[in-house]
């Protein structure tokens, strides 16, 4: 991976952060999460890669806008992981520690890992 794609994906996390920051403290968790996911999707989609989105925790959540399976304008095969808005409850309430993350890796490098729904449900309490 000669190109430093980190410099490219940071533009996506910046746009996501700016989008979320404008709605910080409004109290609507789903609105801030969906808007941020929309913003990071649009920016990641501009990259010159063939990106496959993996490890999306919200993939089965009906209230959340899903990431498309593939992103990018064409190029090398890459895997993308994005947490557009970590700590979305905190961001919606104006609390601390809310961040936007993105990871890019060569195709097949990151594992696809998800625990069962019932195990995840226990973490929500």
């Amino acid at each position, binding site marked *: *991976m000669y190109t430093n794609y980190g410099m490219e994906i940071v533009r996506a996390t910046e746009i996501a952060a700016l989008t979320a920051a404008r709605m910080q403290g409004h109290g609507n968790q789903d609105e801030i999460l969906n808007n941020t996911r929309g913003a990071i999707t649009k920016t990641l989609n501009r990259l010159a890669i063939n990106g496959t989105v993996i490890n999306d925790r919200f993939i089965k959540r009906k209230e959340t806008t899903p990431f498309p399976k593939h992103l990018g304008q064409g190029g090398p095969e890459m895997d993308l992981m994005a947490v557009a808005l970590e700590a979305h409850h905190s961001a919606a309430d104006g609390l601390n520690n809310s*961040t936007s993350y993105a990871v890019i890796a060569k195709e097949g*490098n990151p594992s696809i*890992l998800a625990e069962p729904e019932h195990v995840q449900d226990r973490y929500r309490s």
Partner: protein
Amino acid sequence: MYKIVIGPEAHQSIDINQPPTINVKRVARALRKYTENVTVCILDQARHQQLIKEVRSCGARIKLIVEGEISGCLAAITGEKADIYMGYGYAPESVMVAAGITCLGGYFEGKIFYENDRDREEAREHHITDFEKIYRAQDLIRSKEVAIAATGITDGEFLEGVRFTPNGAITTSFIARGETRTYRRLETRHFFDYKPVF
């Protein structure tokens, strides 16, 4: 997934199957600190009450955060505001943490706890067959060809939040790359008059 994350100085000093007290003391020894001076970052959630009690009983300092598991893990990796991160969290986020470890150094162990047959049955649907598997960073990110980027939204453990200026905003970000372990911290000034509308 129950996970423990530590920085590169305390590399491999933990064992996820051991109780928190032993792991805290091992990390303290590896960092050449008194146990009382080790800071453990834990999410302030109901599921962590027992863990918090145990860490308090061994005398270590605790940094409680309401949300932001990945930020807490990165704070432990860089040793900026914590020495260890411990707690239960989502598995997909662990892959993100493993990417951070590949790029920045550090050590991670994670284990998914299955309480009943329904959990195990559902795990098989996710192609998980080894229910006692301990996940480490190299299991989740298989090579160094990875890069991670993050931008703070509200002030956090690891990054500052967005600050708005009269004609734009200032963001704080970091970029790290696995192959070279280059770690950049950026302060970016955005001018909304010249930015496309998202």
